[in-house]
């Protein structure tokens, strides 16, 4: 019987060998793949095992990490003033992933980014606890506060830029949300999250970047720029060829002005000061759809903008003549994000140079070494220097003696444009109040801002950019200037 016994011994050996091969295959060959699978909760356990790096504004972190109880995810994110900073940082939740900066810069914040490889290897030998890196933003805490408080209970958004660099100084959106309420993965977090999703005011929508509004009269700045750049008019104080009443081309509709204002053949300066629909509607039609689209595109329309957080593309539509004329005064299918309109003001303020907007100034390794610094970058040149200065004069007139007087700041030159955009079927819904502006000091322009207030409790006649939005813009500009 011994011969078969030996064979059975070999058979048993083969069984054990198969297991040995299999365990080598699993734990050596496939280890990396199994270790990094989405289904593998260890990935997330590890991710939350140490304190997350912070997002820094003006040298102070606006985020923090807190230890959780009763969960295998040790640390969760917390915000110092969540609703105010949420439009900048986004959220980072154990249960619901992350958004915006928290998501885009996750590698640095968790310390897992490849750029931190050397750092990690080093701390492996020194035995230091793993840490995340920090993200230093361009934001200005005072400006952000002014924007957030200025919006208050109203629905709206503010975007402020440094025209000379493109640095984003303020990015507020209301109603906002506190990302701390759903940063964990407990039932309470789920409830908070679901409530936010259900809220019909859409608090989690970042209106400054992800909502496009009809820009209304603020778009007349772009139309004026197109007129100057294309040589349709060169003298801002010369008479334009603008009939009153002005009938839209190809259709019988007559374009109205707000109120009985002397817009007939008004100069560009006067037309912008009084916000003449007829003058700018005709300019848009005179230039034609293609030229208007080209100029809008130079200001950043028709493509997504990455700050690095994505901003929706603003739209200057390809359309027929009457619609194009309406689009020229910021109506019809013309849509813009608040960030886009801030870019318009910034390009004018920066003598025609549009800078790439950005909000990450530096990425810092856990040991505070700077591993990335943003270099300012020119995005395009929608205006020549000369034309930009003409447009500045026009916008400054608007604030000095036009619809935007509420944005006047003592001792500072301010240029701006109001807007009241109508929307809804037959303009039945409450219009949007817009204001775009920039401030200028002896060393150039430190801030350009766009404010939109969606619907307010004020009645339709009161909703005007000058009344609702301009004071907010003024507060933001003041906050920036006072710090310089």
């Amino acid at each position: 019987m011994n011969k078969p016994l030996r064979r059975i011994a070999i058979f048993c050996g083969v069984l054990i060998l198969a297991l040995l091969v299999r365990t080598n295959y699993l734990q050596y060959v496939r280890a990396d793949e199994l270790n990094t699978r989405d289904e593998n909760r260890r990935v997330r356990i590890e991710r939350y095992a140490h304190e997350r790096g912070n997002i820094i504004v003006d040298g102070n972190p606006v985020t923090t990490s807190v230890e959780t109880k009763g969960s295998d995810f040790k640390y969760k994110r917390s915000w110092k003033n969540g609703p105010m900073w949420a439009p900048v940082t986004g959220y980072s939740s154990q249960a619901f992933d992350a958004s915006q900066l928290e998501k885009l810069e996750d590698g640095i914040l968790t310390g897992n980014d490849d750029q931190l490889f050397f750092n990690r290897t080093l701390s492996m030998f020194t035995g230091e606890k793993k840490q995340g890196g920090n993200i230093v933003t361009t934001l200005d805490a005072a400006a952000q506060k002014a924007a957030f408080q200025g919006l208050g209970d109203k629905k709206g958004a503010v975007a402020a830029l440094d025209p000379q660099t493109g640095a984003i100084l303020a990015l507020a959106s209301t109603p906002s949300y506190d990302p701390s309420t759903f940063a964990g993965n407990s039932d309470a977090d789920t409830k908070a999250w679901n409530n936010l999703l259900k809220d019909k005011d859409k608090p989690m929508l970042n209106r400054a970047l992800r909502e496009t509004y009809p820009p209304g009269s603020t778009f007349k700045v772009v139309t004026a720029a197109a007129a100057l750049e294309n040589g349709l008019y060169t003298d801002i104080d010369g008479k334009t060829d603008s009939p009153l009443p002005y009938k839209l081309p190809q259709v019988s509709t007559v374009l109205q002005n707000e109120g009985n204002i002397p817009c007939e053949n008004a100069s560009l300066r006067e037309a912008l000061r009084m916000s003449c629909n007829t003058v700018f509607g005709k300019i848009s039609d005179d230039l034609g759809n293609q030229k208007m689209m080209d100029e809008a595109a130079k200001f950043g329309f028709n493509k997504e903008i990455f700050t690095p957080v994505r901003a929706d593309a603003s739209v200057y539509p390809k359309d027929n003549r009457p619609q194009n004329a309406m689009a020229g005064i910021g109506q019809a299918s013309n849509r813009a994000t608040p960030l886009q309109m801030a870019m318009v003001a910034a390009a004018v303020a920066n003598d025609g140079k549009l800078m790439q907007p950005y909000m990450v100034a530096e990425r810092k390794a856990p040991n505070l070494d700077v591993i990335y610094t943003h270099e300012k970058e020119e995005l395009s040149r929608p205006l020549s220097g000369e034309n930009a200065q003409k447009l500045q004069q026009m916008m400054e007139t608007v604030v000095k003696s036009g619809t935007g007087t509420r944005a006047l700041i003592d001792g500072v030159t301010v240029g701006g444009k109001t807007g009241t955009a109508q929307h809804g079927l037959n303009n039945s819904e409450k219009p949007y109040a817009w204001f775009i502006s920039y401030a200028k000091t002896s060393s150039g322009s430190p801030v350009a801002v766009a404010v939109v207030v969606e619907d307010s409790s004020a009645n339709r006649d009161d909703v005007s950019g000058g009344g609702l939005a301009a004071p907010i813009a003024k507060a933001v500009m003041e906050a920036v200037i006072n710090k310089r």
Partner: protein
Amino acid sequence: MSVVTNTTTIGAIDAPSRRNTELALMVFAIAISVFAYANVGLAMDGTLPSGMLGYGFGLILLGGVAHLVVRKFAPYADPLLLPLATLLNGLGLVLIWRLDQSERLIATAKSLYGAFTPSAPRQLLYSAVGVALFAAVLFLLKDHRILQRYTYISMVAALVLLILPMFFPGKFGAKIWITIAGFSIQPGEFAKIIIAIFFAGYLMVKRDALALASRRFMGLYLPRGRDLGPILVIWAMSILILVFETDLGTSLLFFGLFVIMLYVATERTSWIVFGLLMSAVGAVGVATFEPHVQQRVDAWLDPFGEKTMAHSDQIAQALMSFGSGGTLGTGLGQGHSDLIGFAANADFILSTVGEELGLAGMMAVLLIYGLIVERGVRTALAARDPFGKLLAIGLSGAFAIQVFVVAGGVMGLIPLTGMTMPFLAAGGSSVIANWALIGILIRISDTARRPAPAPAPSSDAEMTQVVRP
């Protein structure tokens, strides 16, 4: 009894008893387990666990008793079997205790059953019962051939044990439990041993008929039709188990055991070919009709598939657990093998070994199992009687198949079955039955290695020299 034992007059070379080797290895096995226990405590809480003394003394007591029993009743037994079993049992206790500390498992148990009962104390109790049974086997069974007398009783007992679970409600998708007075017993674990006894007894008697009466066809010796009877019956039995108890593991174990023993008894390769063919036909046939088996096969083929994950993520979790262990493992107490949740300390205990002790630990544990099987096979080779040979190879073959089926299932090498890793996994039936199995192997090895007694003096001489009081 010893008069019956030695049918041969060839005196064996006076083999050393190797009891001291065994004692040294026992010390080693217990020390490793106790250090592992301390390791878990230090890794999880930073302090030595409070149960350390109790656990250490318990293990030393069990190991000491087992060793002394072997020393007294089986002095020539194989010196490796007992330390290897002790090491696995000790490590198993550590792993179970470690999983008892898992907050995740405690929370799951509380939400499912309202309360959490730690498994380690119970496992220690079961181990004690197991060692007691081991001692009882060595004490009561002075010669393994006594078991031969119970061939047909064993058959009946095995059948009863295998059929019983059919009449009890199934748990977790398989009917392999019987519940008596609150205790759940897996009769399959005991049936494994009893069946090996039956097969050994039956085949010893029938092996000549099965081996010699056959026709040659295409290079294979085909058995006569009427000799096919027993294998067909066993085959049918295992298929029935698969269908009615939806237990792939026991079915496979049962059939594999029979084929191995049949092959050893008859030395006819044709039986292996037949066996493999029949199990293939059976497996494919049942897999096509049984949704439960189908599910397991699907889970094996595509562990991360949507369909599988929706039903159960056990295999996927086990695989990720192994992967996370990597080469050296996370260290005891520092892994997340408890993510498997259900049965983490039973059927899936090997994932904890894989994750926390790494590839190195897995290889070591698998080699320990391999060594136990090797010692069993060696015992079969050394045994001097056919019944002992058959029984030893049957028990070690069953052990090997069980290890392969469970470890292979957990590692995704073959479809998952509902069996437990001998000695490591939490579960009373398994520990108790496997201690009995080791006891029988030790008894056979003791008989095999025992030096032959001096030839009995002639009866005449005896008669004259007896002094009656």
